[in-house]
């Protein structure tokens, strides 16, 4: 279906395309992380390919491999009606550095998808405008979809903190203070308190 895309990629980028396959009818290209942004931009802009929609982006952790983390993007072209899967492998055995260029400038949906990949797999996207957790809360430690994150691990409950204490504005926080939300605990203002 998108053999054309694989051919064009190989012709244009040569060595940067590490391997390709078409298992189960899904055309896949594994690319060098250094060329990630350039390849994504090419796939989006090439008139014969026009992958104008990023369907999905996720990280897959292979703890036995080096590079350990695989970042997988699924692209779709609405005008050409074809698909491709682009993968890249990054990170050392301990995932001390696990960085990749952000493609938010190519597809706007990459904004949230990269935030999710960062949150769940711990991939740092260079150049992302607002890289913070999206599904978990800021104090969450670790990245749950890494294979070495124990599935049954519990993290401590958080104390309520104000926006100033958290040092973060517009961030996820407990919606009510301890004295809010319940009628018996609601703060009642008196004249003297106001003055």
């Amino acid at each position, binding site marked *: 279906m998108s053999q054309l895309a694989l051919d064009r990629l190989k012709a244009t980028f040569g060595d940067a395309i590490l391997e390709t396959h078409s*298992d*189960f*009818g*899904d055309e*896949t290209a594994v690319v060098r992380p250094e060329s990630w942004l350039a390849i994504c931009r090419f796939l989006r802009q090439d008139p014969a390919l026009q992958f*104008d*929609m*990023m*369907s*999905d982006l*996720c990280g*897959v952790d292979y703890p036995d491999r080096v590079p350990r983390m695989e970042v*997988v993007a*699924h692209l779709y072209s*609405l005008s050409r*009606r074809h*698909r491709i*899967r682009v993968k890249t492998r990054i990170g050392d055995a301990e995932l001390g550095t696990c960085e990749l260029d952000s493609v938010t400038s190519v*597809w*706007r*949906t990459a*904004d*949230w*998808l990269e935030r*999710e990949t960062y949150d*769940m797999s711990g991939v740092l996207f260079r150049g992302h405008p607002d890289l913070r*957790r*999206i*599904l*978990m*809360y800021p104090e969450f430690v670790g990245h*749950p*979809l890494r294979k070495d*994150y124990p*599935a049954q691990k519990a993290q401590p409950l958080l104390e309520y903190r104000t926006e100033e204490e958290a040092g973060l504005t*517009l961030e*996820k926080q407990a*919606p009510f203070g301890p004295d809010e939300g319940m009628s018996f605990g609601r703060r009642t203002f008196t004249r003297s308190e106001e003055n």
Partner: protein
Amino acid sequence: MEPIDLDLEESELELPAEPMRLNMGPSHPAMHGTVRMVIELSGETIDKVDVQIGYLHRGFEKMCERGTWAQVFPYADRLNYVSPMLNNVGYALAVEKLCNISVPDRCQWYRMGLGELARISDHLTCTGAMAMELGAFTPFLWFIKARDMIWDILEEETGARLTHSFGRIGGMAAPPTPKFKEMVRASLKKVLGILEEGEKMLLKNRIFIDRLEKVGVISQEDAISLGWTGPCLRATGVSYDVRKAHPYLKYDEVEFEVPVGQRGDTMDRFLVRLAEIRQSALILEQVCQRMADDGPVNVDDPRVMMPPKDQVYNTIEATIQHFKLVMEGAKIPKGEVYSYTEGGNGELGFYLVSDGSGTPYRVRIRPPCFSVVGGVAQLIQGGMLSDVVPIFGSVNMIGGECDH
């Protein structure tokens, strides 16, 4: 009469000019799901908004890595809990693509029939709830009445109203009941009648129309770049429906149209959903005509299918097979696959990685709402606070799938 604020200073009379921070959600009666919006208001106009999801995160993908392939079905149900059958079938198709099996014709028709029923219930809920959030409570009750008729069919077929867990790798949990077609035909008539009544109440209501028209407009380019699919994308005029563009099951053998909007506003999203209900009804009629009354539903493949119960109790081979399928799970061939179907809100994708064992190595879901909700901030910014409710109602955020 004396003004009451006579003794106040002039400066005290001025309204505060700095922007106001408003927290909408995570549990707000006019919001469609558990989502929080931090809104910065100047007056009634929204300057800045931050949409925060994740309040319904349950670690779906992590949970899937702990059980067998078949044990994902109940989790898949709980992704989009308004149309669970579509998720079930979507996941089943993904695993079947990995195993390279194709289910018998009768099962394909059956899956389509149940899927379209689920789609109708999804759209009825979305449009009904959106109307209710705008104050039109009666149409909501009308639509829920119609949805209940559909749920009655699904209950008769699957045994559960909401979380069916009815899909299986290589088939369905049970064949269609003898009354299936009769029930579908009888209910469809009633559902379409109710739909028309409910629609009349809304589309002749000036207030309702004024609150939807030209509100939350998005251009085609923006919608595509934001990864929108489903009714929200089609409302902008892009005719992309997975069922038409890349037919799966028997969608290439039925006749139906893909309704599209023109302006991409809230009204178009509302109308596209209503039109899709009618198209789903058309498909259902064809399913009733074409689905065979007898024949196998499940694929005859001992790798993935459970043997019949009487054989499990009476033959040693079937006992062993049953034991291995339950304890170790079906061994799915090594590889990776991305399978996509049209869910209630758009393209529902599953990216599966198998290491050849009975447990999924990685299950990644591509929930249609996630991208759509990612674009909501753009629709809301610059608009009025009261427009948040219809806009958010029309994108139909389902917390379960959006938050994984």
